[in-house]
């Protein structure tokens, strides 16, 4: 593929290898000015590696063994000349939480990205940039530090920083994963405007719908090779490669609804699990579950996890003002809310990582200590959390095996080496990772792989309730489908209750039994998913409507009342 005169960015026969083999193999790519190119592919297919290579950067452990990357005809591998990054090519990384400088206020981060500015223009620049990504432009917000932002806010700040210098090309690595639908729509609008202004884009995304609306051309990566390339419309409707077909199929198919098993009293995972045939069940197989979820002690009526009147503060600002919720065995409750509303905080309150200022959390009716340190082993094991930020959630110096073994040892008391190895293998398999990954460090994993490791870790202790804070955001459609299927299976088989925090309307609609909408730190609405998000309509629009509806517009449904629980 030869570049014509308008070609801005090219990769020719790019080959990058790790000690274990190639990550990218013979990748050719070119981008003309103002063009929008989407890169899709399953998790671990080399998208982030490619994006970094286009910036002239190789992660540690990755070697450049062939081909070249050029910007305006000049080689940028192995060393990018000064002035390429930032001003010519802007970058939005996959993991904003790990990228923002914790010592710099938002304002400083943006001004640093914007380069030299006259003193008088700085305030207006900061405000303009923040507003462009849908964040409040007031000074108070600009003076915040990254840790004072929610995941979605962080991501938008990173985006704002990339826009600051009006680069010729933007490289976006999953820029909207942490955004709620309205925010996402806003960002996409902003990006669309940029495109109008002739700014080229390389866009890495799992979100095929957004890709379809946005990209001129799509490249499908598979195992480090280009599986197919073509106009967006054609690739997304009639993919020719197997990889493309898989992705598109998973992305457009409405995930099979995994309704919860009837909440018959006394029904629980335990008998099912114990009596389950020892065959294909990778997770809760031969071993009788050794946590509260499986024991018969707690098999009483009522929700497995209930929170009432939760109040949570960050410093002096109150984020949650009295939240009530309940999840039942085998149920999946999706929590929706705009970015920054307090979903992560709620998750942390439930797990005891952020002790609530008021209110109680009860596990099967037994109140839990607000601080996780005050909970006993059973209680800790019973509530699992997949944190929002997979990069930070894994210890950078511990390999995957250690990450998985620890909860097994600590919370399940397994010490036998062979048994541990077997469980680790099973866990990896259940999240669709090859067993060989056990020896890897987090730095050697792709974003989606990290997220799956984090999920596997949370599942290791066989919790009764699993809280997933955006646990599928970094996953491609195929992997996402796999994970949701796994959760569904666990729910059905072991009675696992799932609290699914997500921005992905489709996931919320297809995977959950019930919805809970947070607004202004309170529960704005709750009810069965089919009621709140009836099938048919575009789920995105429905969620947007839900989130932007005035508080109280959505009433609790009979479903709640008939359970005798007043949830609002």
């Amino acid at each position: 593929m030869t570049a014509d005169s308008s070609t801005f960015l090219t990769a020719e026969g790019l080959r990058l290898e790790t000690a274990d083999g190639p990550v990218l193999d013979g990748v050719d790519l070119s981008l003309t000015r103002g063009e929008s190119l989407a890169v899709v592919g399953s998790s671990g297919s080399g998208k982030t590696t490619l994006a970094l290579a286009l910036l002239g950067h190789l992660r540690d452990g990755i070697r450049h063994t062939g081909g070249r990357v050029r910007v305006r005809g000049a080689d940028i591998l192995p060393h990018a000349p000064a002035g390429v990054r930032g001003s010519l090519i802007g970058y939005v990384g996959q993991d904003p939480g790990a990228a923002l400088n914790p010592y710099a206020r938002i304002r400083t981060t943006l001004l640093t990205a914007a380069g030299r500015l006259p003193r008088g223009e700085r305030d207006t620049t900061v405000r303009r940039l923040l507003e462009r990504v849908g964040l409040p432009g007031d000074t108070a917000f600009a003076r915040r530090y990254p840790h004072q932002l929610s995941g979605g806010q962080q991501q938008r700040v990173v985006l704002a920083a990339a826009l600051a210098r009006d680069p010729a090309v933007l490289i976006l690595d999953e820029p909207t994963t942490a955004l709620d639908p309205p925010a996402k729509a806003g960002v996409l609008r902003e990006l669309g405007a940029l495109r109008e202004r002739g700014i080229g884009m390389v866009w890495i995304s799992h979100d095929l719908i957004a890709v379809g609306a946005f990209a001129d051309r799509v490249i499908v990566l598979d195992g480090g090779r280009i599986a197919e390339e073509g106009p967006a419309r054609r690739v997304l409707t009639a993919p020719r490669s197997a990889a493309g077909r898989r992705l598109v199929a998973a992305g457009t198919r409405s995930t099979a609804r995994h309704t919860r098993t009837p909440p018959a009293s006394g029904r629980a995972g335990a008998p099912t699990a114990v009596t389950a045939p020892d065959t294909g069940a990778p997770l809760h197989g031969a071993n009788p579950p050794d946590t509260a979820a499986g024991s018969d002690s707690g098999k009483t009526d009522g929700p497995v996890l209930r929170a009432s009147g939760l109040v949570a503060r960050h410093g002096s600002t109150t984020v949650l003002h009295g939240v009530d919720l309940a999840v039942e065995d085998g149920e999946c409750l999706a929590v929706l809310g705009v970015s920054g509303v307090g979903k992560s905080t709620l998750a942390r309150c439930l797990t005891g990582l952020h002790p609530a200022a008021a209110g109680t959390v009860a596990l099967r009716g037994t109140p839990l200590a607000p601080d996780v340190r005050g909970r006993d082993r059973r209680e800790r094991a019973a509530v699992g959390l997949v944190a929002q930020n997979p990069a930070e959630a894994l210890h950078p110096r511990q390999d995957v095996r250690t990450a998985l073994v620890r909860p097994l040892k600590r919370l399940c008391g397994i010490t036998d080496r062979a048994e541990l190895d077997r469980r680790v293998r099973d866990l990896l398999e259940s999240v669709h990772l090859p067993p060989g990954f056990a020896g890897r460090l987090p730095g050697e994993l792709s974003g989606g792989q990290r997220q799956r490791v984090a999920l596997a870790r949370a599942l290791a202790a066989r919790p009764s309730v699993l809280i997933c804070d955006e646990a599928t955001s970094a996953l491609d459609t195929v992997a996402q489908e796999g994970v949701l299927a796994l959760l569904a299976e666990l729910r059905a088989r072991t009675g696992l209750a799932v609290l699914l925090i997500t921005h992905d309307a489709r996931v919320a609609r297809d995977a959950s039994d019930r919805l809970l909408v947070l607004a202004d730190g309170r529960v704005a609405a709750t009810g069965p998913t089919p009621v709140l998000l009836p099938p048919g309509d575009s789920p995105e629009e429905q969620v947007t409507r839900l989130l932007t509806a005035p508080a109280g517009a959505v009433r609790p449904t009979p479903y709640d009342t008939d359970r005798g629980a007043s949830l609002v």
Partner: protein
Amino acid sequence: MTLLAGPVGRRLALRVATGGALLAVLSLLVFVGVDLLPGDPVTARLGPNATPERVAELRAARGLDEPVLTRYAQWLGGLLRGDPGTSFSGKPVSEMLADRVGHSALLAGLCVLLLVPVSLAAGLYAARRPGKPADRTVSTGALLLVSVPEFVIASGLVLLFAVGLGLLPAVSLIPAGDHPIRHPDMLVMPVLSLLLVASAYSIRVIRACAVSVLAGPRVEFLRLTGVRERTILRTAVVPAVLPVAVQVWLVTGVGLVGGAVLVERVFAYPGVGDLLVTAVLGGDLPVVQAIVMILGAAMLLALVLADLAVVLLTPRLRTGGAV
């Protein structure tokens, strides 16, 4: 944002309060501890010139045969009234310490003033090239400097600059009635000797912290977004290094106030370190007790400041965020 009203203010108030309590504990420890030191102040003072009867007489006269707690109470009372007692030489301790503490603080202050930029520059310079010859040179150089004792360095400086080149005075003979600050030529070599020795620790710690920050994802990201290296150092690396570095600087600085004994000796600089050792050697307990209390209070203050600095310099702590 008024810092003092927020979490920082609360922390500070608490810290100052515990600092005061610690000072009280320290005073007891110091008084009793120093009292238990071997040797008898009276015989140490009288040397071989005194007969045992005179020693006994003198002990009684100085109240040394009273129980230690009684003497502690008296001493503490005096201290609170601003009177740290009388030296065994007969001079009021306050008079003996008056200038010397300031002189030593001046030396230490100047040293820290230079230490901050020097150690930051050298530490960051080395950290940006980990494992490269430049890093090895800085590290090894710093290590060599720290492993040569300060009096050897000081003597070397004297040989070079005073005896050899005649550029600077060999000895800090500060005229009576003058403050050392009026004689900068006499401060150069003492400060330089202290700096050479003290900087190694800061350089090494700063380098170690900076290396890890520079290798982290945040710096990688900043680099990818085209932020200049200088800006990265300023906005991401230095702030991450500062909380640790401030500890080292403050503690080193206060340590130098009483710990620069040998440098003070070599230059005959009228500081408190020399006085401390002389007093320890001579068994002049009231002086030892007073100096240790002053240095202790200074150190506790420095530690409070260092703690405060960590809070102020770590946004997560400053804003009172979650753990």
